[in-house]
């Protein structure tokens, strides 16, 4: 995976200088985490969650939603009660 893919996936526009800088930093981070591969984990279940908990459910009950005005408060642009975004398809 190269820095261009990463920046596209995270929607970050990087200058060439930044690309070089971050590519180096990211490589170092990955290298560091690679250290974990040195451990023998063959007998260990993959851990997705560190708490010994499961089946935390809610009942299928309604709770109040936000008033649309409030929900849309942070939207950069809106039209009526719709979020307004740049055209998605041609």
């Amino acid at each position, binding site marked *: 995976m190269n820095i261009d*893919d990463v920046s*596209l*996936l995270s*929607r970050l526009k990087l200058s060439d200088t930044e690309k070089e800088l971050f590519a180096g930093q990211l490589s170092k981070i990955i290298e560091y985490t690679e250290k974990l591969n040195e451990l023998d984990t063959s007998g260990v279940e993959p851990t*997705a*969650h560190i*708490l010994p*908990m*499961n*089946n*935390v*459910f*809610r*009942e*299928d*009950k*309604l*709770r*109040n*939603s*936000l008033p*649309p005005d409030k*929900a*849309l408060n942070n939207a950069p642009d809106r*039209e*009526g*009660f*719709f*979020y*307004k*975004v*740049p*055209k*998605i*398809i*041609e």
Partner: protein
Amino acid sequence: MQYEAVIGLEIHAQLMTESKMFCGCSAKFGSEPNTQTCPVCIGMPGVLPVMNRKAIEYVIKTGLAVNCDIAPHSRFARKNYFYPDLPKGYQISQYELPICERGFVEIIVNSEKKKIGLTRIHLEEDAGKNIHEGAEDYSFVDLNRAGTPLMEIVSEPDIRTPQEAAEYVKKLRAIVRYLGVCDGNMEQGSLRCDANVSVRPTGQKEFGTRTEIKNMNSFKYIEKALEYEIKRQVKLLNDGGRIIQETRLWNTNKGITESMRSKEKAHDYRYFPDPDLVPVEVNDKWIEEIRSQLVELSDSIRQRFVSQYGLPVQDADLLTSERSIAEWFEEAVKLGGEPKTVSNWMMGEFMRLLNEEGKQIEESSLKPEHIVGLLMLIDKNVISGKIAKTVFEEMYKTGNAADVIVKEKGLVQVSDESEIEKAVDEVLANSPDEIERFKAGDAKLMGFFVGQIMKITKGKANPKVVNELLRKKLII
């Protein structure tokens, strides 16, 4: 070269829960835009999603109905991508540990049974809705649907023809509707279907390159879209071309599939377990509890209708197409209706009237006791079969009982010979030509005489008496 198609289907079914998958907002369809959202489903920082127990149970229920293994451990994962209808920047879905795996359903195509394997059924949250119409340079986003529970049913690539594909979707739609977990409304999108299609030379083991077809929102379009896509691929290969792996959209107006040129270039969903959600553990006790709530499904009811009530297979097919229709029928039979007669009325008049109005059977004011009341009046010769149709329509319209309508409208069958004789005499007196032709051998005119008599008596004359009298008077 002969080619065969290989088709696998993904069905997305919106679950009929009251609230969303991970928050308490309403999952209702058709409300004003952005009135059913909260910090959880619009991706505000610092919120914590909590699983809707009922949604999990609905998926287990479906899994049991289609012979799946229910996973003792499953969990949710984040599928990361950017799109305006996905406010968190990821969809909570399931990846390597779905709730159900390895099932199958049986379909019947050209009178032959075929098993279609199911790879998995998993649970995820739906995205919001983008509206592209109405503005040149903008799209509009409604997040009411964002976060509603969506069940994805993935088939094995066991389907070989468009017809099989349509039958498979019909079968699954009937199952989720019978179970009451999804309303199956394809037009409104509560049941959606995508297809993976490839072709290969007949006899070849390896699959060809596949395309994914989206936007087929009816059984008819599933068949048409797949027929088109298979032809397109075969022609392309025969012309020496290559199939490109891509997503294509069915264009209903043009009747073709079109390449969906997506702006997203790098597809990498970077799935990882959602740290906000704890694992789901399903033990046998829970499974058995859900199993005990399973209703009898259409296949079993269909067989029972044939064996128990002696119905022809076509009748049983139609009567079990919806759970509500099957229940209506069985209620009428329990109240004393003769099964085949009830079935005839349902498949004929009743379905016609319902279709005219685009109504569902449960919305009708015509109930099983209505039809049973009507059949009793026919049995007792109170009304003729012809009048019965009028009474039926009137019951359908007003919801009044048959005997009330017959009394109110004066529709009681006349069997009194002297009264009918008057009408017979009148008709014969007015038809000297017809009588001559009849005597000269034109037997069809019998129908003409009966028709005229019925007209005068407004259909109330007992046909048996009319026939007897006519035969006597015309000396045959």
